[in-house]
């Protein structure tokens, strides 16, 4: 235990004193958030977006309006759909089975959508229903994504890349010559990195919140738990990378090959809604997707752990599998 504590301490100090890495891990996400928030503050999407429950209805010509993008949903997603409408993610929701459409009375396109529906009502008019909710700004939506992305980089490179460097320059070999076990050494690296990413994430969160005042509808404890689970899953994935490689360039390249698709497809900056199914399915295999999804559900919809259970379970299983794989594959040299 004494040895373990000594290793966690040494690794953490190594990070804190490395001013460059420390500054980068704090400044990078803030710059990202502020930059993207400015760049996309205007709504560049000229289409109306309407959620569609149920099958097509030939008796309702509105469904054929070319200027409207209809996004099909299954009945099970009804609650998520209504939340999206409340947060101004959709301009309306149509249920062809219930012959009802919903609009948000605070939505900026509500009047036009109402007009379109009445013009294209067809033979059997749909019932009009109203939900209420303030819009979710892009920045509210962006913050969990960027913090999660920063955490992903911190974990994968901070554990994966650093252990490969240690293997190459002989630090691991020196540790192998001591009574310290590989398990204890690697766990100490993981614990140190975990503490670092949780603290830096909290600092970035509070730091950006000071001037962006973003939305947080859920419980901080739930958010912390999901963040911890996200960090575990990324550290575990980093350990798989760190288990064998001896070449930093190769490990770095492979880590980039892994982090870039995650960054692009896990919905950090843009929602994948409406993109080809295959992309969405690929994204479901990434831990970052589930981490961001759960964090957004907590922050923007006030979900608890029960509602985010599928993501929580995925992250737990992913962590367990990666840890097992890393333990099985790990070699000092």
């Amino acid at each position, binding site marked *: 235990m004494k040895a373990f504590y000594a290793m966690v301490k040494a690794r953490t100090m190594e990070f804190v004193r490395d001013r460059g890495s420390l500054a980068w891990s704090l400044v990078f996400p803030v710059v990202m958030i502020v930059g993207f928030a400015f760049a996309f503050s205007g709504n560049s999407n000229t289409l109306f977006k309407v959620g569609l429950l149920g099958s097509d209805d030939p008796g309702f010509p509105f469904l054929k309006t070319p200027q409207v993008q209809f996004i099909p949903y299954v009945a099970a997603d009804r609650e998520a759909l209504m939340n999206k409408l409340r947060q101004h993610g959709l301009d309306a929701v149509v249920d062809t089975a219930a012959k009802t459409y919903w609009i948000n009375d605070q939505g900026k396109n509500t009047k036009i959508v109402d007009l379109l529906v009445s013009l294209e009502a067809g033979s059997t008019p749909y019932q009009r229903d109203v939900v209420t909710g303030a819009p979710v700004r892009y920045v509210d939506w962006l913050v969990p994504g960027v913090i999660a992305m920063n955490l992903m980089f911190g974990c994968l490179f901070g554990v994966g890349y650093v252990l490969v460097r240690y293997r190459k320059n002989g630090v691991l070999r*020196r540790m192998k*010559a001591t*009574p310290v076990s590989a398990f204890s050494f690697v766990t100490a690296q993981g614990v140190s990195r975990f503490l670092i990413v949780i603290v830096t994430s909290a600092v970035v969160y509070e730091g950006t919140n000071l001037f962006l005042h973003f939305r947080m509808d859920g419980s901080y404890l739930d958010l912390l738990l999901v963040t911890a689970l996200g960090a575990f899953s990324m550290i575990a994935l980093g350990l798989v990378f760190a288990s064998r490689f001896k070449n930093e360039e190769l490990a770095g390249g492979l880590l980039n090959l892994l982090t870039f698709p995650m960054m692009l497809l896990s919905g950090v900056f843009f929602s994948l809604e409406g993109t080809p199914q295959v992309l969405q399915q690929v994204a479901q295999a990434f831990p970052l997707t589930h981490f961001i999804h759960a964090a957004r559900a907590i922050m923007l919809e006030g979900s608890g752990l029960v509602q985010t259970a599928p993501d929580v379970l995925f992250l737990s299983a992913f962590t367990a599998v990666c840890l097992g794989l890393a333990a099985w594959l790990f070699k000092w040299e």
Partner: protein
Amino acid sequence: MTPIMNVTDLEKKYGRLTAVDKVSFGIPEGICFGLLGPNGAGKTTTIEMMEGITDPTAGTIEFRGKPIDSTFRQKVGIQFQHTALPEFITVKETLEMFSAFYPNPRPMAELISLCSLDDILERDNQKLSGGQKQRMLLALAIVPNPEIVFLDEPTTGLDPQARRNFWDLIRGIKAQGTTVVLTTHYMDEAQLLCDQVAIMDHGRMLEIDTPDKLLHKHFNGAIVRLPGRELQTENLDKTMKELLAEGSDLTGLSIHKPDLEDLFIKLTGSTLRS
């Protein structure tokens, strides 16, 4: 007296290459044992097998009459040829971390005085000079209070002053009763420090004995050198008179007492392959 370590028919193969070819030797307790050989002779592979870092292909390694086991790690001190130290932490912090790994670490004050670390205690590992780094690595090797310490080419790349200082440190550690196993390709170093030397080449053990006995065995008398000529002689007086009688030009003559370097070159058939 039983040797502290005993190696029998030790062999290491990497694919088709035989790095160490069935070597056997014993190391008496409390001595400084030098393993000499040109680069690529198999010195490092041999001591890494003895340290328990590399698994042998065949052969046995015994520590105090028993095969090495998991407790061996706590009794052995190791200084590798190439090791990076954790960055951004100081010498003192690194020593503290290593001290936490062992049940009975050597007290910090003793480490500092044995390895002359006073002036660099608060320095970042990254900012150590070559000699300072070697002193630091030696300190890490003796943190566990080892019964035997392995030093793999500890003075390679050091300036003459730093090498001499390092020799004093090794003598100090030996004076405490610790057995020292040293690899080097500096023959002056081996001659000064080692009670016994083993000379290896191409994975084989060529000779093993005290430096004096080895020199006695292979050389008699002196080596007389003239430009372009080298004579080994048992009777210096007779040789000199013969040279005068045959009217040789004695400008540039030197008389040299054979040392380990002469023996090394005689045995390995080459100059130091560095």
